[in-house]
């Protein structure tokens, strides 16, 4: 069950999404919008802070560490870029937001819910740097 590293399905690239992908590619670190007013982290990128509605923010790196909330294995291929089986995980970042991503390794037998993970940027053949995760312990 190897994750493919060749092509990235179309990304949602709205007005606020570009820096997320650009910064990851440049420095290999995950950066999110952080409210300049109340320091609340924001993901997915958007126009205002969900806590205080302030439109002012900075892109700041996060630790890239988090915990697995849940995981699944696709046994059917819906996207030409991904042939099954492959895994998808939901990771709660230590800073708060939840990201949907993949584990770069084969999920071990049993449950991985609650396991600690770290960011693993993956250089796709199409030039996109994709934020995936690896198990820490």
């Amino acid at each position, binding site marked *: 069950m190897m994750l493919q590293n060749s092509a*990235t*399905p*179309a*990304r*949602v690239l709205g007005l606020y999404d570009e820096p997320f992908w650009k910064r990851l590619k440049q420095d290999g670190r995950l950066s999110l919008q952080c409210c300049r007013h109340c320091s609340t982290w924001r*993901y*997915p990128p958007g126009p205002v802070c*969900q806590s205080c509605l302030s439109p002012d923010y900075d892109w700041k790196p996060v630790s890239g560490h988090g915990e697995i*909330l*849940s*995981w*699944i*294995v*696709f*046994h*059917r291929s*819906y*996207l*030409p*870029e*991904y042939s099954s*089986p*492959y895994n*998808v995980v*939901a990771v709660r970042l230590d800073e708060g*937001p*939840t*990201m*949907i*991503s*993949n584990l770069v390794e084969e999920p071990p037998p049993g*449950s991985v*819910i609650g396991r600690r993970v770290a960011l693993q940027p993956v250089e796709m053949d199409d030039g*996109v740097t*994709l934020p*995936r995760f690896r198990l820490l312990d």
Partner: protein
Amino acid sequence: MNRLSRVAAVIGVGHSDWVGDWARVRAGERPDDNYGYGASAFRNALADAGIDRSRINGLIVGPTTAYERMAEVLNLNVRWGDQADAVLSVIQAVTAIESGLADVVALVYGNDQRSVGTQYGGPQAMGGDMFLSYVYHAPWGMTSQGALYALMFRRFCELYGVTERDLGHVAVAQREGSSRNPNAIMRKTISIEDYMAAPYIVEPLRLFDYCLINDGGVALILAEANLARRLSGRPVFVEAVGRYDLNQGATSLEPRLTEFYRPAQQAVAEQIFGASGLDRKDIDVLQVYDSFSVHVPLALEGYGYCGIGESGKFMRESGIGLAGALPTNTGGGHLSESYMQGWNHQIECVRQVRGECGDRQVPDCRRVHYCSDVAGKAVSIIYGA
């Protein structure tokens, strides 16, 4: 008291030939388009109500058709109209009737999703522009609405000890109902063993956890309560309605992954039970919007039919089949009757209360609770005699 309680009643229901059209579409035909399916359902609902078309002065069409065109096709000039999904269209019709904007409202839905190949997963996923979570995670291969529910169910199992085998009771119970429903597309009963032997689609969900995709239409006619009593010998009243939304973190599936949408369902339960003078013991049949089987255990817990984490035990021991403690999706639901995006559940509610469900009739059915917990909102309706 719920202000919308017994303000309006359903006086007519109808649907297109789901079973016949299923066979025709599989044979490569295109029997109808969205409007045609809606029109045939409307014709049947009108006949069921026994009223003349000219009596209708309100119209709501489903989200799959354009309002103006559907009204043109049905040749309805009305004084009030709207476009809404199944559960909201019933609530909006009741609201319009309560405020005097209309007194006989037709609700019409048609969908040719199977014959035109509507995609609910993959690059052209339906609603992608409306619901960001359907498309946002595509770079990681995360698409298909079933996958969202698979992710939620995995965590639910982990936290509460519910098992994949427990979930199988949903598909098994609904096939029991659909096997006795001449309007259902899937008529063959299945066992838990059949369920477990079916392939995973997105693990931990299997084939039988997924809804059908078929063509068809559904229509309902609602009338102001006093008028309904005059027009119909068997009006089915809307007893209570409720709604609550959880939208914080929706794209990352937060409301589902961390709380299984439960706070929204609990808020709705307070609206439909406490305030209406009704309680769970007054409910004879439950109908749950079941794009995926997972909705059923979550609704059982969220609406308080069993304790938190006890839905597995409830389905296993008390039962959700026709002879169970709480018969659920008695017509087969989206999994086995027809995937009409919640619309077919409305007419099953009405038919159970009328007592016209034949072999799948729940004896002495007086009240049915319909709930849907999808796309950013938890909504409920209680129908009663």
